[in-house]
């Protein structure tokens, strides 16, 4: 995967030039993180995989926001409404983070609506319609099952990103992707317990 904007050799050359310029002709060039940042304009090299991840995850998150946004109107239980509200707030903020990252790099910025291209774990139109038709306890059960599927997909996307050469070298991408990974694993466990408790109410967590 080749970097989108600045290939490593070009960056290295720019860095060297900047370092030499910064030091004048006397003394050896000293390359520091700050000199590197000045040379690349504060934008470390990134790859198409990074861009695909950040823009793909916007559409992925947007579907979760839509699903979770139904909780109040679809008769969800109190615990589920709380979980859904946290998902709405959390994933909306993350959408803003991804949009900022793309905008800062003059990349195409998805508008924050659910993507039509199905990323891993995303609900099909049919699944989405079923969830939208469900009410009360059935909504809870379907929501948990579908959101677990949805979160598993996000984890898959992170693991694919980490498997791509040159990807996640940018600290913002690395940090964000790692957060998605650990947060959603934690949430899957929480939702699995809620789902189990729905089936066995006496074992309620």
């Amino acid at each position, binding site marked *: 995967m080749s970097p989108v904007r600045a290939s490593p050799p070009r960056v*290295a050359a720019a860095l060297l030039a900047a370092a030499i310029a910064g030091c004048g002709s006397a003394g050896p060039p000293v390359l520091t*993180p700050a000199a590197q940042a*000045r040379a690349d304009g504060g934008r470390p090299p990134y790859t198409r995989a990074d861009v695909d991840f950040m823009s793909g995850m916007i559409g992925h998150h947007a579907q979760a926001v839509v699903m979770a946004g139904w909780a109040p109107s679809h008769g969800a239980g109190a615990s589920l409404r709380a979980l859904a509200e946290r998902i709405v707030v959390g994933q909306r903020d993350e959408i803003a983070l991804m949009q900022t990252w793309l905008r800062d790099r003059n990349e195409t910025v998805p508008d924050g609506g659910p993507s039509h291209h199905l990323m891993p774990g995303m609900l099909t139109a049919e699944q989405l319609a079923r969830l939208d038709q469900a009410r009360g306890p059935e909504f809870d059960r379907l929501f948990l099952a579908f959101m677990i599927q949805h979160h598993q997909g996000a984890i898959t996307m992170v693991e694919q990103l980490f498997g791509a050469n040159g990807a*996640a*070298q940018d600290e913002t991408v690395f*940090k964000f992707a790692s957060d998605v990974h650990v*947060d959603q694993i934690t949430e899957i*466990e929480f939702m699995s317990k809620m789902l189990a408790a729905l089936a066995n109410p006496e074992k309620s967590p």
Partner: protein
Amino acid sequence: MNRTPASLLAIALLSVPACATSSSPAGATPQPAPDLSTTAPNPDPRVGLRAGWMNPGEAAWNLRVVSKTPPSEKFYNPSTPGDRRLTNSDLAFTGKFAIQGNYSGVQVWDISNPSKPTLRIAYVCPGSQSDVSVYKNLLFVSGESTSGRLDCGLQGVADSVSHDRLRGIRIFEISDIENPKYLTNVQTCRGSHTHTVVSDPKDPANVYVYISGSAPVRSPSELPGCSGAPLDQDPNSALFRIEVIKVPLAAPEQARIVSSPRIFQGLTAPPRHAEPFDSARAARIAAAAAANPGAAVRVTDGTVARAADTTRPARRGGPTQCHDITAYPAIGLAGGACGGYGLLLDISDVANPKRIAAVADSNFSFWHSATFSNDGSKILFTDEWGGGSAPRCRATDKYEWGANAIFTLIDNKMTFKSYYKLPAAQTSFENCVAHNGSLIPIPGREVMVQGWYQGGISVFDWTDPSHPKEIAYHDRGPMDSTKLVSAGSWSVYWYNGFIVSSEIARGLDIFELLPSGFISRNEIDAAKTVHFDYLNAQEQPKLVWPPSFALARAYLDQLARSNGLAPARVSAVRSELARAEKLSGNARREALTGLADQLGSDAQGSSDQNKVRMLAAAARDLAATPR
């Protein structure tokens, strides 16, 4: 509203633009008279602060800014705000040095003159998040990111599988603080997001490091043996465990992993307080399902069953990792903040920590770190909801979300009491959530200072675990008024009389706690008698107060505040302490012993018997201190 003119002046002074580029020794300005009110400024001056990087609006209450020092020029690029490579991270302390991690390396500050910290070295070695700890002549630095290199190079690691990559712990020898010697490193499967140095009183030849990593497991082609498979598929999975590294002090280059405790094994859902799962409703659902088999069939048909099946690659079985572990060797316990749980670990066998209790909380999203009360009877956990990148202190964000949860800890049982969250609403351009802090050694109370990223720092009292209360703060406006640019206090710790904060984008801040209606001069003076040779907040030190008149007066002030002694008696004891302080030798000893005896009798009739006894003990200890 009950604000004195002096406090208004203090706020006004602190709200003027900060010095842009250099340390600003605040000692030059006359100190305003202390604000002895117990009413917080209203409206809260933290709301609506002007945005800016090095010159934002500022507000402070009961804290004095001693210095603000920008990062080393090696880690500071004024032309691009928010470059995550240049993030300042955690702090450790040794002697007169504050060691500050940075995603691109480590900075060592000499803080012997806190109004003018001086940089001794900025060591370049990229690899987030560079959490730092010290032990004797060793420095430990966490590396987790995929761009960290064994050779500390700046170029990152392009290949997804590479033997140039470092994810784990770097170990430096720092006898010569300006020339850290990179001794060795210990690679781990998930890298080291945080770590905890744990010393073992029974094993002085070694020191141990608990490694917590949150990022995905790397390929076995890069580090042999690494597996990210579920535990039921691979008993050697790198998930569901922590790593324990043993470092022989005589040969630290031989540091290695000695155990990988599966501290989550058998962890079932612990009881939750606060709006737990709605069991009554769940019972109704089950009843309805039983009465209507058709409905049950509908929700277990093909699509949904497949969806549910995707959970089976068992992300189940408890958390896969801890975010951070706070060890408190003096009481043989550690608090683990692990996925969706707060764990209590028995660390009496340091290399083999064992889980002895766990709590969950339906309002907690991501358990981040723990702090014990000094006597071990309480524990506070933080929830870093959103990982520190998100604005979670807006007026619309719930108080219980992204907050601290305070528990009593009695006979190894944790019982929830309350939440504490930064009480000042922040903008959507300020990342803000509960983060790192430490106890301020005010004797007889639990007072803590904590960083909330761009929410600033908050000092709060949690002596009463059911009613925590903010008593001091400092805050800046957002980095940018148009978008969220990461900044703020990563961590803030009390170290030998001062409050030192690592500001992600703005460098190193040092504060002094001011006397107020909540904390007396005597209590602060007593806090300043506590001396650490070194400090890693993740290995909580037991606070011990040497005998001093300040200590006795601190307890006396607390008894005056709580009416644990009648006002006339408080005055008499105060006079007696003043008289004794002027005496020496036998006369002093007799005066103090007499006072201690009287206080012993006072305790019987006091509503705060413990405190009176602590005061009596403080007087007796003073009597035994030769002068």
